[in-house]
């Protein structure tokens, strides 16, 4: 199935390199998990105690693909590919420093991809560092340096290389400030992206206008001030992001969380685009727990999608397509083993179009050993034009303490046919084996039939290691 001929030596090199990468992990896996827990000598108690968490995931997929239907829908040849992905995540917590005990944390997350066999134009190796930061926590101040994320408030979600300083003053006042260069979305710069021409009423992409990314010109800065006390929180934040052509976004954010009683909490968030003087996003919610077994969240959202994008996007100059959304989420727990989730939302778009979406999910853990889990979901989406009914049934069964099997089936039934099809379906199954607590091997496969594929079959193999180590010293 897999043609390795010409790339055999390259594949071998890759496999050897991959195995070398795993050696330290495998060696570590052979050791007892909690090495320090049995060490009770005074010497071990006196030393620094820190936690290390290391996760490695290797994925191998196998599928046939056709990169295009071809110009004017022409048929093209398919190729069988086996991409290999490696994900690594490392976290170290509570390391002592000369400044303070338990004050240093480290985080690293990265992925890499390569190919076995055919890879038609794809690079042999690809990858990215997702997070690489070190955090120093002192009494009321913490500083994080490196590749990190800032989330919530005016920033919404931004990854950047830089520094974040957080402080708590006067007991209840929280201050934070950050600055750095934002991490460019690599997906936007895919290889083999060529601009060959266009249909008559479309200008072709003007390549001189597509400037090469200069990291120095993509920067961001922001901060947040918040008051928190007795479960109440009130925050105000600002975020400015720049691109080579100018301002990408300049937002003012507000957030509120206010308990009304032991069973009701109100809250809200808003992102105000300062340069446009419009709300990009505003959400109000009310969390209710009328019964111990019932959680309900009432929700209202007003949003303008265009303002969530960079203002250097064409959205910035052409009108908004705002819409409002209101509805609720609910979760009812009949017992620890049976629960019901529901959601119902309605949308009113700027063009007076009305849409809606709803979902009802039943989850049951069956049997005396509670090893079998069943989930049934029905969902309905209507956009004012087309829409669909969806059914998802999921089954998970712990065959033994080491073996776990899952099976899922999805069905979608469209109001209006898509490419002539009224429905599509996906079937997936996995079988995983956990020889030791730290290691899990998973095999999975999926089959689907859809308007875009008569038959789509994929298989994957995943090997994951999750190591948690406490050094065993005394805090």
């Amino acid at each position, binding site marked *: 199935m897999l043609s390795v001929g010409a790339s055999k030596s390259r594949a071998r090199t890759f496999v050897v390199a991959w195995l070398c990468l795993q050696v330290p992990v495998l060696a570590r896996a052979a050791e007892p998990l909690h090495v320090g827990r049995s060490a009770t000598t005074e010497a071990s108690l006196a030393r620094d105690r820190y*936690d290390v968490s290391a996760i490695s995931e290797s994925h191998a997929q196998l599928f046939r693909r056709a*990169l295009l239907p071809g110009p*004017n829908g022409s048929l093209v040849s398919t190729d069988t590919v086996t991409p290999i992905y490696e994900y690594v*995540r490392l976290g170290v917590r509570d390391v002592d420093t000369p400044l303070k005990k338990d004050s240093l944390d480290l985080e690293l997350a990265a992925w890499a991809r390569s190919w076995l066999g055919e890879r038609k134009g794809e690079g042999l190796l690809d990858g*990215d560092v*997702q*997070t690489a*930061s070190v955090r120093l926590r002192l009494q009321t101040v913490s500083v994080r340096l490196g590749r990190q*994320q800032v989330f*919530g408030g005016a920033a*919404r979600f931004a990854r950047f290389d830089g520094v974040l300083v957080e402080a708590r003053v006067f007991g209840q006042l929280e201050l934070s400030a950050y600055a750095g260069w934002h991490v460019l*979305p690599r997906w*936007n710069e895919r290889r*083999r992206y060529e601009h060959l*021409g*266009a*249909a008559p009423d*479309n200008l072709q992409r003007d390549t001189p*206008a597509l400037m090469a990314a200069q990291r120095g010109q993509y920067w961001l800065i922001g901060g947040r001030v918040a008051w928190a006390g007795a479960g109440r*929180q009130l*925050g105000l934040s600002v975020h400015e992001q720049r691109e080579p*052509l*100018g301002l990408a976004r300049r937002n003012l954010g507000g957030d509120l969380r206010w308990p009304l009683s032991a069973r009701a909490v109100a809250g809200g968030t808003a992102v105000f685009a300062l340069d*446009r003087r419009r709300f990009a996003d505003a959400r109000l919610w009310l969390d209710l727990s009328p019964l111990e077994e019932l959680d309900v*969240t009432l929700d209202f959202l007003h949003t303008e*999608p265009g303002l969530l*994008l*960079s203002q*250097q*996007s*064409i*959205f910035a*100059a*052409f*009108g*908004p*397509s705002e819409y409002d959304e209101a509805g609720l*989420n609910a979760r009812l727990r009949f017992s620890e083993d049976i629960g019901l989730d529901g959601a119902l939302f309605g949308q009113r778009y700027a063009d007076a179009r009305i849409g809606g979406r709803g979902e009802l*999910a039943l*989850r049951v853990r069956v*049997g*005396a050993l509670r090893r079998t*889990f069943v989930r049934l979901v029905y969902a309905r989406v209507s956009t004012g034009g087309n829409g669909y009914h969806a059914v998802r*049934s*999921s089954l*998970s069964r712990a065959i033994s303490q080491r073996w776990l099997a899952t099976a*899922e089936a*999805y*069905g979608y039934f469209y109001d209006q046919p898509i490419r002539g099809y009224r*429905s599509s*379906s*996906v079937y997936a199954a996995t079988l995983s084996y956990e020889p030791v607590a730290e290691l899990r091997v998973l095999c999975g496969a*999926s089959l*689907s039939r*859809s*308007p*875009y594929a008569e038959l789509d079959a994929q298989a*994957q193999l995943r090997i994951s290691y999750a190591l*948690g180590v*406490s050094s065993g010293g005394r805090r």
Partner: protein
Amino acid sequence: MRPSPSSASFGWLSLGCVLVAALVACLERAPARFPHKTHLAAVACGSSGQPDCLSCTSCHRIGKDSDPPRGETALCRNCHAKDAARLTSALAAKRELHSSQISFNHDGHLALAEVRGQCVSCHGGVVSHGSSMPSMQQCFSCHEHAEQWAKAQCTPCHSFSDLSRTLPRTFLRHDAAFLRGHGALAGQNKALCQSCHSQAQCNDCHDISQELTLERRRPEQVQRTRVHEGDVMVRHALEARSEPSRCVRCHTPETCESCHFERGVSANRFGSINPHPPGWIGTNATASSLHGREARRDLVACAACHEQGPLTNCIRCHKVGAYGGNPHPNGWHSGQSSSQGMCRYCHE
């Protein structure tokens, strides 16, 4: 119309899976639990001719290694000498699994006046057929742990590596609307969230540089609600039309175009068919045209193909002095100078 995949077969398959699962699960029997209550309270003991009274420490070692006894049958044989085989199999039964390891000072707690040396003060579940481990709520009924709570410090009771795998069931339980509002919560409670979750975990969903979605990486987590569920590629236009904000929170329009281009369904690709109907663009500024109305209805759909930065084809017609007319909506206001950024491409 082309034949559709059979919805009936899908329905039967789903129903069959559920029935088989329920049937198999109903047939299973839980292994007998060790009858703690019988041994600790019901059996007559202590008098002459009776066995010695048992306590928790008769079998369990108190301290860090407080695992249940396994294979230590000498004490048991005092009474159960005749059914050694049953005894061995009972002791070999699987232990109750706990979601996390707690770092806990048993000696200190047993010495407390409220506990009075009684293990069942916390582990009452072993005699009432519940969980042998106390709930976190039970811990907090004596300890407020206010200082740790304020600092969102779950350690040293919990270890960080365990926390990242532990689901909160009572405290900090994630409710049904959690997925929808978790961003705001994370912004408000950074320290609290980061006591269990590392920033790296955010990347599972939020790093769009990676090609493997969470659905592909964790196919066995069938209990999760997923963002890109099932054959999302077929439905993506519908989803974008239903909740456009949800898409653009993570994806930029280039995401759409790069994919469409590769698959030959982009107007920017040589040889593609013009997807627009006749009358899409009028012959002059006053002629009727369809594209303006559609752009007002669903600009996100336009930008999926036509988002080309500052030299977009929209500007060619709609710049000041060109024949396309003013594209701005009523009430349009920008705080920027017209010599800056995007403005200058039309207002030069």
